[in-house]
């Protein structure tokens, strides 16, 4: 029996100690009428070898793709040591560290992670992870309402240049608690959030503003002006950041005169593989004054009864297992394993390694732009300074270009036409440090080739 160790003799003697004659007798409290019939749609068992073959075949069908998509999930090199450690049974198969004495490894790792993330974002405290970047933004908005509770209504400014799926996810989760969101347009020339739209928003009774840096288009926002405006009007600032970029960008703690209040982001770039969309992890940091409004788990350093240092989950009175209906969030299990991967990743690459990753990615995207500029029909409509991602205008519907590139084994970009029809035919493309000269040439040649054939067919 796969994964069940009982022998026939075990079963017999166990039943006799229980005092029943069959396993079926143990279900005599389940009403007969409810008993399940045969599970027709579940196939019979396969051996590990057989399912291994099926999965390997499916993986081969998807293939090794040359990827130029970012849009919130980024392909970076992951040191082999990261997942060699993370998949150790002692990490991979441990439970949430409620029994602190039996979980010092996990707890100390979280403590180290909190230290790294707080420093990276320029804040004072971090939690032990949220599900992902998008849902972390929802949690940050809910937290801002608790932290800025002098207000009777809850209004949050959410620029259109924030990741569209983050906006959808956040609005979906928060509208159930009667928070209203106001969209702020972006400037069509620079790609930055429009200062005139932002500064003319109704400022009375504003709970918070969301600023993504770099924004969804990869463009740097004028974070100082936006932050100071928000604070002058009594609103909190929620920063959405790419952790890799913080190796080279001023951290949210340094934005404007007072710095951002809550910082969240997608942790995936820190040692977590793309893996079809997850599991990733969301991070959240804030200032000490707001720590009791933070959702999720937090680890604190303490001492044992002999005075030796140790670590434990703390401020648990915020959480659902204590506070139930009055908790800061319903979050329970989150993304511990990925948090561990990020901690090990950051330890191995260090501040200088992360800087190199950021700078190399910017350089590769610039190289990609330079070479694509020579392709007829392609241009880059947004002129703001950028990190490692760029909006690219193409002369054909992006869907058709992407389909043809896919046929050549290339993931060619994120189609912006559904989320931003005002941009026309545009793609969001990204090149990280993982792309070589040859990769970039292959992409440019493929794009050229596809555009030629599509235009020839259309002519």
């Amino acid at each position, binding site marked *: 029996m796969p994964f069940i160790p009982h022998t026939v003799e075990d079963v017999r003697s166990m039943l006799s100690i229980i005092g029943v004659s069959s396993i079926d007798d143990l279900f005599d409290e389940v009403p007969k009428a409810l008993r399940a019939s045969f599970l027709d749609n579940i196939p019979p068992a396969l051996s590990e070898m057989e399912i291994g073959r099926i999965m390997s075949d499916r993986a081969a069908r998807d293939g090794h793709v040359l990827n130029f998509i970012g849009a919130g999930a980024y392909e970076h090199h992951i040191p082999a040591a990261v997942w060699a450690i993370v998949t150790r049974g002692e990490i991979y198969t*441990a439970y949430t560290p409620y029994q602190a004495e039996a979980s010092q490894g996990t707890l100390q790792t979280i403590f180290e992670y909190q230290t*790294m993330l707080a420093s990276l974002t320029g804040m004072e405290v971090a939690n032990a992870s949220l599900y992902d970047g998008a849902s972390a933004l929802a949690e940050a908005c809910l937290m801002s309402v608790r932290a800025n509770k002098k207000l009777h209504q809850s209004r949050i400014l959410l620029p259109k240049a924030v990741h569209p799926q983050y906006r959808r996810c956040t609005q979906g989760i928060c509208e159930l608690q009667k928070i209203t969101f106001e969209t702020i347009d972006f400037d069509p020339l620079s790609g930055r959030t429009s200062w005139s739209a932002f500064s003319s928003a109704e400022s009375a009774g504003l709970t918070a503003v969301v600023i993504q840096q770099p924004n969804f288009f990869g463009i740097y926002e004028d974070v100082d002006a936006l932050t100071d405006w928000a604070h002058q009007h009594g609103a909190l600032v929620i920063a959405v950041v790419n952790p890799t970029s913080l190796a080279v*960008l001023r951290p949210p703690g340094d934005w404007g005169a007072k710095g951002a209040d809550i910082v969240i982001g997608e942790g995936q770039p820190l040692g977590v593989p793309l893996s079809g969309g997850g599991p990733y992890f969301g991070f959240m940091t804030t200032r000490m004054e707001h720590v009791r409004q933070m959702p999720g788990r937090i680890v604190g350093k303490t001492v044992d009864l002999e005075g030796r240092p140790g670590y434990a989950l703390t401020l648990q009175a915020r959480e659902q297992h204590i506070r139930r209906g009055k908790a800061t969030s319903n979050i329970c299990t989150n993304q511990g394993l990925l948090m561990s991967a990020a901690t090990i990743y950051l330890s191995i690459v260090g501040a200088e390694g992360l800087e190199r990753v950021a700078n190399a990615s910017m350089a590769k995207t610039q190289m990609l732009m330079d070479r694509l500029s020579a392709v007829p029909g392609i241009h880059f409509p947004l002129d703001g300074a950028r990190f490692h991602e760029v909006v690219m205008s193409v002369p054909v519907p992006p869907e058709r270009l992407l389909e043809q590139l896919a046929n050549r084994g290339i993931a060619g970009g994120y189609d912006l036409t559904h989320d931003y029809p005002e941009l026309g035919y545009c793609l969001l493309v990204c090149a990280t440090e993982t792309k070589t000269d040859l990769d970039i040439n292959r992409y440019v040649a493929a794009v050229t080739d596809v555009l030629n054939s599509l235009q020839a067919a259309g002519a």
Partner: protein
Amino acid sequence: MNTLSAVSRPELEPTIFDLSASGRRATAQAPALANCTVPANLRRRVRPRLPEVSELQALRHYTRLSRLNFSIDTNFYPLGSCTMKYNPRGCNQYAMLPEFLGHHPYAHASLSQGFLESLFELQEMLCDVTGMKAVSLTPMAGAQGEFAGVAMIRAFHRQRGDFHRDEIIVTQAAHGTNPATASMCGFKVVEVPCDATGDCDIEALKRVAGPRTAGIMLTNPSTLGVFERHIAEIRSIVHGVGGLLYYDGANLNAILGIVRPGDMGFDVIHMNLHKTFATPHGGGGPGSGAVGVAERLAPFLPIPVVAKSAEGYRFLDERDCPLSIGRLSGFMGNAGVLLRAYIYIRMIGREGLRRVGEFATLNANYLMARLQQAGFQVAFPARRATHEFIVTLKAESRDLGVTATDVAKRLLDFGYHAPTTYFPLLVPECLLIEPTETESRETLDGFAVTLEAILNEAREDVSRLKEAPYTLPVRRLDDVRAAKQLELVWRPDP
């Protein structure tokens, strides 16, 4: 002084920051130097405090830290309500094939057919296992599945023009996430008590159910470790007032292949794939809280959902599902966890699913019988255990002054992870014990003998338990200090 405190213990590990030396780094991992093109006014001025260590130092540090943990791979984990069963390694290996790991979530559907086919089949299999009509895999943990479920209940009522239902009923024994979720979805929480045998108090339910009832959240088997026998009556009461039934799948392991939530009349459920379907807990996630629904709730499922057509598999989005409650994640939930659950179900197959429910129940009833023989009092002696059961130390607490925490901490000294303590809250000094189907009889016997020995220790000298554990890297920790003198990040010694 107690002689036990002289036992040798694993050494503490310094923090990674203590190992750091300025200028040291793991060069093999860094790409070549490139110029920084960030405009001067946006450029970072002070480097973040990240460790400066060699690759070996990092590897050794985190390997050593890992050895300070209990885990399923190293210890028996009878943690009630958490289903700490074996996480087959094959599931991990084949979910981590390089093509899957390198797969971008926004890649064109034609580059995703292998991935999507696995997710689609998982949706179909979970429908069959639970008796529901449609499944969405996107919620990233049980609590997010609960959120999706309650949000769908809300959307269902509003869609038919009923805006007055503002209450969700939960039982007194419910997981903390149930009331927290109901609040997060904007509902008032109404609690109903349980009767002396552990079932829902039907008369109390009748009193609170009414035109304001949006739905009820139930776990069956309940968190008291017994099967809710009045389920048919609960269903007719709640449906009778126009409310819906939500199934918290935390305890699905107990009834896998035996009885299906859909057949019990539930309208919406979440499953914890990291419990029932053997994906690892990872020291606090990632989980996966897939949701299943009856026909009438299918239009509200969270997206993306995988669909199959003549052209192949693809994700459905806002344009396909206009009534959806929307997105809960930026991409596709915990996709890699879903592959692991898929592989697990294919490996145990239809007959294996039923065996899970059977042997989880056999192990729990056996362990309960062993502990009763050893003199422990169980919370519901007249009832069958399901996949878990509750021991109450009420008498020992009164007579000896020993608490559930004391016993739990002492168990750690013998290499057993503690059972769940102080949950459910309504049983005093309780230990909620869930052995799971993957543990052998020998392991259960060893655990029973140890628990009995600990009870004997308590009778001889209760102080020995009060100061446990002795053999772990740290002794009992000062939680009060942790919360009062908040030290949440590392700082160099002054």
